[in-house]
């Protein structure tokens, strides 16, 4: 026995590190057997198969069911609202409960988007969404995984997300506001000296007489005190909060000032940054 093994044999691991996640996590479930999911999933075919394809994060399963439905003459809007979105609602329910994880959500989002594109082909135009949101990564910053998550959460939540990409010059953001008149914007940054793009964008918008109900700013180096030092902005804590913030603007007509005050209630959970 070498030294480290001898030392290890003297240890009671419980006094050193406890894997709480193992203790908390319940038994394995089949997603469609969860009661909340059962309440959401449509009973009728082919909507059920479409929703199940999304729930399983299976692009082929979802897409084939969508194609079959459309060939049988179903309205593309029904396919979207009663099939694809129901599947996504079920995924969101499981994610919120902690039974589903990010990869499940991303794969389901991919399946939903493929089904949506197919439906829009038949529809001949973009389907109606709850509203348009513009998302960008600050100028000079190449880090975009956070923005990509935000975009996926927004789309899964029924919003049209205009993805401007990363290292986006401020003028492009302003142009996008003029073009899309978004109900909400999201900006992300990893570096201390690229997040300074946010107040500049707000300033330029004000100079141009433009207003967006709220701009959610987040990312690695971004802090609440910095974000709240300029107007129109809200500090976004988690990517999955984004559609809830957007919902509050659409449904409850919340302003950026109100979102700052009521952030925790709006996202429906304890958020240390806001309490």
């Amino acid at each position, binding site marked *: 026995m*070498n*030294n*480290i093994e001898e*030392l*290890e044999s003297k*240890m009671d*691991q419980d006094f*050193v*590190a406890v*894997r*709480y*996640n*193992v203790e*908390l*996590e319940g*038994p*394995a479930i089949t997603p469609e057997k969860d009661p909340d999911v059962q309440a959401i999933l449509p009973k009728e075919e082919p909507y059920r198969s479409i929703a199940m394809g999304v729930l399983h994060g299976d692009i082929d399963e979802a897409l084939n069911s969508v194609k079959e439905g459309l060939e049988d003459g179903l309205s593309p809007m029904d396919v979207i609202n009663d099939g694809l979105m129901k599947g996504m609602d079920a995924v969101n329910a499981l*994610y919120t409960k*902690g039974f*589903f*994880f*990010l*990869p*499940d959500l*991303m*794969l389901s989002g*991919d399946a939903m988007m493929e089904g949506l594109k197919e439906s829009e082909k038949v529809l001949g135009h973009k389907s109606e969404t709850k509203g348009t949101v513009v998302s960008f990564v600050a100028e*000079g*910053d*190449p880090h*975009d*995984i956070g923005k*990509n*998550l935000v975009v996926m959460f927004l789309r899964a939540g029924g919003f049209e997300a205009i993805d401007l*990409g*990363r*290292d986006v010059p401020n003028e492009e953001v302003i142009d996008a506001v003029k073009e899309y008149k978004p109900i909400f914007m999201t900006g992300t940054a990893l*570096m*201390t*000296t*690229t*997040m*300074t793009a946010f107040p500049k964008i707000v300033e330029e918008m004000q100079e141009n007489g433009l207003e967006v109900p709220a701009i959610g700013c987040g990312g690695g*180096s971004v*802090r609440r005190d*910095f974000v709240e030092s300029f107007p129109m902005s809200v500090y976004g804590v988690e990517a999955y909060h984004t559609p809830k913030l957007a919902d509050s603007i659409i449904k409850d007509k919340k302003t950026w000032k109100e979102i700052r005050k009521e952030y925790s209630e709006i996202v429906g959970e304890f958020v240390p940054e806001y309490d």
Partner: protein
Amino acid sequence: MKYLVVNHVRRFTKMVYKKGEEMVFGRSKFPVSQRWNIQLGAGYVVPEVKVAPVEGSETSEERMIAECRNIAQSACERAVAIGLPAFMLEQEHVSQQTNNPEWAAETTKAQVEVLEKYYDEYGIRVSLRQTPADIRIEERGPGLRGSDYDNNIEETMEACAANGASDLCIESMGGKALSDYGISRGDPRAILFGIGVLGSIDMEYMWNRIVNICKKYDCRPGGDTDCAQANTAMFMAGGLLDKDVSHTMAALARGMGAARSLVAVECGALGPLKDCGYENPIIKAISGVPIAMEGKNAVCAHSDLMGNLTCAVTDVWSNESVYHRQEMGGTTPEVWLQATGFESALMNTALQTGQEEVLRDLYTLTDKYRDPQALILAYDNAHRIGEAIVKYGKDPYLRAREAALEVGKIINEAVDANKLYLTRFERESLDSSLKTIENLPMDSDQFIDECIRAYSRKVPEFNPKNYELEV
């Protein structure tokens, strides 16, 4: 093989450390000497401090220079005030520094002046590490190679070396679009392609240039880290209760990251390998170069599950990064250098008194079974992963694949021995990932062809031409 065997570098096919237990903090097989009488990995641990320029300092060259000078001055003052025999200051560039090579020249010069003054006055051993930012945007023409961004990185590297930097590092981003895709979707094949293949190819491009620049000056090529990929996985895996990325998947990404980050050493990097590279113990085991690490004194930057374990075989001990601002105990360069300084003093006391192996083992055991990500970086396991890598050392794809498989084996052995417990999510993610990886081809060309076909449409930022891969 048409892609990866066009090797312009010497690949590791043997381990420099024959056993894991030969490794300990503060000692490496190939210590590095730098100007200002400092040696790294030569029998003592050097504390490091790194501070991010404050927002607003990017508005002019003068402000950025003043900011960098202030950071250096604060660090030197505290180092002397608490009696540190040596320390390293690292400046990780913000994009404005790397985008303006003339700024980089002047900020480096300003920090050199401060460090030199303290070296002359007190004899304190100092080191100035400059880490330009990888500001390349893969999807924007002409891509990773030869764009203005790329040229600015090279010019900035040269500006730092010419103006007195002790060594140069970077956290290169090649393959990140693929690994981001794979990490967020739980797709181990995409992660392996992004880290093991694309990351390795891009590092060779980047590091041959950095090493050539360093040869012209009294400046050492330091190292690269898989910050953009394996650390993204670790960051997203988060704490025990987070539900974004499984901790077993993050451990697999770390194993692959070691096969990738080794390329810097193969191109001529001498170390200390840059902190933030949690994969560094594996590379030290393979190559014998000194390493920098971070853990419990990097809580200002992020959380990890191995705060002590990462001390075990390090040569430089870092705080990762922190906002430049005032704490109750002083400015952040002062406060965080004090934190890394006292931890290094403990390690150096152990080295002086012959207790280094005991302290190394205590550091290791506090975290070894806290999480699978910690388990695989314990020095004994790091050595095992190193052995897996050198077994297929000549082929960047196969060695990353083998590293991932060995990570899986190590985790499963600990689970079978009832030492490590996994959640259902971690268990399923590990089982399905290992199955996928085991079924991948043993031929690089075939794997690359399959991946180019599979991901070119799914990941729009990915362009095989950026890696000189044929379509």
